[in-house]
């Protein structure tokens, strides 16, 4: 039996790493990967609490988070492909069309 705090701590650390990645990196694909990392951290928190409370609902939430993550990755990467085709850029700083 793993202490509840350890898993939650790991989840918080992974979420923090994802946040730092989104703030620091500028490659759009890496940004998407960092978002996936944050979603994984949240999934870990759900699984931990579900195990701790003997609850099946937490696991079901993970299932739905994964569904949303799959749809998000597909649409996000399609947008990246679009951007690359239109502007030859996968660099977040170069994509400033709406800046005026």
């Amino acid at each position, binding site marked *: *039996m793993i202490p509840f705090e350890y898993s939650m701590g790991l989840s918080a650390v992974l979420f923090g790493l994802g946040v*730092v990645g989104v703030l620091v990196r500028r490659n759009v694909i890496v940004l998407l990967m960092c978002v996936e990392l944050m979603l*994984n951290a949240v999934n870990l928190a759900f699984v931990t609490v579900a195990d701790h409370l003997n609850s099946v609902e937490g696991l079901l939430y993970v299932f739905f988070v994964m569904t949303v993550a799959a749809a998000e990755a597909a649409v996000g990467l399609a947008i990246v492909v679009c951007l690359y085709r239109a502007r030859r850029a996968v660099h977040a700083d170069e994509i400033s069309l709406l800046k005026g």
Partner: protein
Amino acid sequence: MTLAIFFVFAAFAVLGGIGVLLARNPIHSALSLVGTMVSLAGIYLLHHAEFIFAIQLMVYAGAIMTLIVFVIMLLDVRHEEAETERLGFAKVFGMVLAGLMVVVLLVPLAAGLTGKPGGMTEEVLARVGSVEFLSEKLFTTYLLPFEIASVLLLVGLVGAVALAKKRL
């Protein structure tokens, strides 16, 4: 023993996360992320979540990461690697804020966990198993969210094709 295995997986997960941050080449970031996801799958197994373990490996480490690696290779982003690595004020400030956020996330843990225990007790697990119990819930109580999720996937599929295709 379980705890030792947990620490090994946790170390690999954190190292993978750091690798995603630091790797210059997006392919290396993606492979680090696969490492993190596989380690997390192991931790899910330690938490008695067999079904989540399986779909973590298949959906995340398998399907989503394959898609990401495929797009990285398709775009040939090698010339993008002159990523500005100097640490500006904004980046340092962002890192400090993210560190603070981790602390804030950890603070409620000290108070312990409040919540109603659910029905997945040892006795139920021994009788029907966690996958069967989970699927029973999914296809009865949570049938509507399940159907909505399938519609969401369909929308994502159509949206991705519509966005990425040159000419419809």
